[in-house]
Every structure is written in structure tokens, then in C-alpha cells.
């Protein structure tokens, strides 16, 4: 079948193979390690390259038509985050904190996913709308802000209820709760917006837009041609880190494991369907879907440890990096590509059979 072949072909690309290699290196306890300075630099480089690429594309194709996809992405991202919470809290019986932390980890987006997706499309000779890089930047803090807001609301409510049941109707405490929420939210908001990922991404989009193809020429070799090679090096390190965490996977449990596979697939497929419906191209729909399918494992810990310290990082980091990320780049990405190809080829298909077929 087409999808399986695509998955298999994708499995045999340097990006995936070096990721798997990194996992193995960590499992056999090799001392292999990409030096810190390099693995801190690579995400900056990758985001700059993504941004420049996006900005140049936006200059070529205009960005008037960017608003609808942007708002659709925001809406879906918030909806999905709330949906995750319900599933985790009701079905998964996770506590409030873990539920919100996980909900936003999977509602948020991942830049590494995005890099791998771009490189996959490049390999397939398919282009995508440049403004999706801008959507990446906007979605980055969104799910966290929602989750932190909801968590703090819930905590304030709990406090209020406790007070009431003790007959102590001092609404000051609620105010304190609300104020804390405000402080936390404004801090997270500020840190997100000035966070290096968003800053370099937005900056590069703007610069790419200004310089265009021609201005890009002298730096093309570094910021375009070396892109896939740089991802490969980064994937070794991602593999090593994922491999070191594999031992924690038993803590994740069967429910969360299933969640970590099914939810990205679901979100991604919805993303492709919706984005195709609003007119995105074959490649654009893949990137849109991948964004929604992605989970955050670099930004999430930094934000959530501060904002929802009660949640267990071993849950959200391990599931996002150890399960969802490999699953997404190996299975979801080619799946979304196949789906989008079919949708854009105009064939009529029985979507339900198609999707479940692709999953099994």
C-alpha cells in the first residue's frame, strides 16, 4: 500500500536513521554526545533557516491570504488543548495539574517537527506556504497560556470552595489566586514572546521577507543547502536524549502511550482536512497538519516547570519526546503526506477507511 511504502521510504532517510542511531547509542550507554554548544546552537540555526525560508516564500506569494489559516490554526489549537484535557482528566484519570500540563504539551507545537517536515517536503520536491512559519510562531505560546490560565482558575476555584465549606467567605483569597494567575500569565506571556525560539523565528521571517530570493543568495548555502545536514546532526542528539529517557517510559503507562500516538494522528488528520478545505496547497496542508500533530518537548518543560510545578515532567517530556516525536516523524508525517496528496489529487476517497487503514 502507498502509505506503508511511504513510511518505509521515510524510515530510510538519514534524518530518521540518525535519530534511531542516537537512541541505540544511548541504550548501549555509549559516551557519544553532541557538545552542548553545538546542540544549543542548532535549534537557533534551524529556526533562522525556517524563518528566512518562510519570509522569502511570503514575499513571493503574498501574505494577505494568511489570516484565515492563522485563525483556523489558533482555533483548532485551543480546541484541541481543551479536548486533550477532557480526555486526560475524564478517561485517563490524571490529576488536574498533569492533565493541563499534558493537554498543553500536545496542544503546543514543536519546531523540530517542523524542521523535519520541511526537509521531508523538500525531499519530495513539494513546496509549502511560507506563512506557516508565522503560524508556528503564533501557536508556540498559545496552548501554554490557555493551560496556565485554566489551571490557575481551577486552583482558585478549589481554594474558594474549601473556604466556603469552612464557612470562611473571605473573597480576598480568590483575589490573591486571580492576581497570582495574572502575574504568572503575564510572566509566561512575556517570556514566551521574548523567548529565543519565537524571537529568532519572527525576526528571520521579517528579514526573509525584506531580503527576498536575491538578498538570500549569498547566505543560501548556509541557511538552505546545509539545512538537512544540520538536522541530521541535531537528530543524533535528539535520539540520544530520547534514548536516555526510554527507561522512563514505563512511568508513562498504557493510557498515555495510546494518547501519545492516537491524539497526534487525529489532530494531524483534522489539520490536513481543514487546511485543505480552506485552500492550502498539498505541502501546506501537510505542514499545517504536522503542526497540529506535533507536541512540544523543548519549550514545554521550561514553561511548565515554572507555571505548573505540581505536574510531573517525567510524564510530559517522556511522552512527547520518547513516543510522539518518533511516531510523528516516522508514521504521521508520511501519513499526512499521503492524505494530502490524495485530497489534492481530487480523487474521492472513503476517508474513514483510509485513516483507520493507515493506522493499522
Amino acid at each position: 500500500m502507498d502509505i506503508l511504502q511511504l513510511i518505509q521510504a521515510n524510515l530510510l532517510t538519514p534524518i530518521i536513521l540518525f535519530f534511531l542511531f542516537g537512541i541505540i547509542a544511548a541504550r548501549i550507554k555509549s559516551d557519544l554526545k553532541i557538545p552542548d554548544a553545538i546542540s544549543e546552537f542548532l535549534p537557533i540555526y534551524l529556526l533562522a533557516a525556517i524563518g528566512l525560508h518562510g519570509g522569502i516564500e511570503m514575499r513571493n506569494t503574498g501574505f494577505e491570504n494568511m489570516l484565515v489559516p492563522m485563525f483556523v490554526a489558533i482555533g483548532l489549537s485551543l480546541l484541541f488543548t481543551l479536548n486533550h484535557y477532557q480526555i486526560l482528566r475524564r478517561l485517563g484519570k490524571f490529576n488536574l495539574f498533569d492533565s493541563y500540563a499534558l493537554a498543553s504539551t500536545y496542544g503546543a507545537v514543536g519546531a523540530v517537527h517542523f524542521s523535519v517536515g520541511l526537509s521531508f517536503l523538500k525531499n519530495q520536491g513539494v513546496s509549502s506556504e511560507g506563512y506557516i512559519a508565522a503560524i508556528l510562531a503564533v501557536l508556540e505560546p498559545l496552548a501554554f497560556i490557555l493551560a496556565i490560565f485554566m489551571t490557575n482558575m481551577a486552583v482558585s476555584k478549589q481554594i474558594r470552595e474549601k473556604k466556603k465549606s469552612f464557612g470562611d467567605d473571605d473573597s480576598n483569597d480568590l483575589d490573591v489566586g486571580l492576581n497570582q494567575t495574572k502575574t504568572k500569565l503575564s510572566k509566561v506571556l512575556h517570556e514566551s514572546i521574548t523567548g529565543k525560539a519565537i524571537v529568532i523565528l519572527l525576526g528571520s521571517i521579517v528579514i526573509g521577507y525584506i531580503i527576498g530570493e536575491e538578498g538570500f543568495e549569498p547566505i543560501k548555502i548556509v541557511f538552505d543547502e546545509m539545512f538537512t545536514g544540520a538536522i541530521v546532526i541535531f537528530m543524533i542528539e535528539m535520539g540520544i536524549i530520547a534514548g536516555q529517557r526510554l527507561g522512563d517510559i514505563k512511568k508513562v503507562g498504557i493510557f498515555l502511550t495510546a494518547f501519545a500516538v492516537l491524539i497526534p494522528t487525529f489532530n494531524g488528520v483534522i489539520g490536513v482536512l481543514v487546511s485543505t478545505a480552506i485552500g492550502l496547497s498539498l505541502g501546506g496542508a501537510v505542514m499545517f497538519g504536522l503542526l497540529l500533530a506535533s507536541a512540544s518537548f523543548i519549550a514545554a518543560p521550561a514553561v511548565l516547570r515554572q507555571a505548573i510545578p505540581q505536574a510531573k515532567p517525567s510524564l510530559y517530556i517522556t511522552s512527547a519526546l520518547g513516543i510522539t516525536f518518533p511516531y510523528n516523524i516516522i508514521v504521521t508525517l508520511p501519513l499526512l503526506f499521503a492524505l494530502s496528496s490524495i485530497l489534492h489529487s481530487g480523487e474521492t476517497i472513503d476517508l474513514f477507511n483510509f485513516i483507520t487503514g493507515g493506522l493499522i
Partner: protein
Amino acid sequence: MKLYNVKLLTITCEILAQENILEILKKNEITGYTKYEVDGNGARGLRGQGFKNEKNVKIEVIMREEKLQDVVEEISRTQFANFAIVLYVSDIGVLRPEKF
């Protein structure tokens, strides 16, 4: 060359707690400190592999005994529960006690 007795407070904690610690110092009107990244192992497991956020940082603060109590109390109350952290105090001698 008389040496004056002051205290050295050393805090080894995960990088994500660093900002909180520095804020507590600031609140207590302590601006001087020295810090550097370290690896380590403790109750919360091996730290220093993986992502930068999973490293430790060591913060050293020379201060007068008067302020020690408050700072240590606030750090232990607000940070001990949520972060990998170890803290200790030693006696040192400095030349210019008015600096601290």
C-alpha cells in the same frame, strides 16, 4: 590584612530554579553572586545530560550572617518542594566586609 568573618551560601539547583533564587536574593537586597553550570546527581536523579534545562547551576553568595536566615528560609520554603536543590553554608573570611 585583617579578615572579617562572613558567610558563604552555596545553592546547587536545577537551572529552571535559578531565576527564582536570584529574585529571592534581590528581594533581600543582595546583588552580588557568582554562578556556573554544573552536573550532578541527587534525589531527583542524574542531571546534566540531555537538554540545557536539565542541567544544574551552582550559585554562591557571600553575605553577612544577618541576612542568611531570611534568604535560606525563603528558598527552602518556596523552592525545595518543586525543584532539585541542595544548599549549604560555610564560614569564610573577606577583606572588605562592607562590600557584602
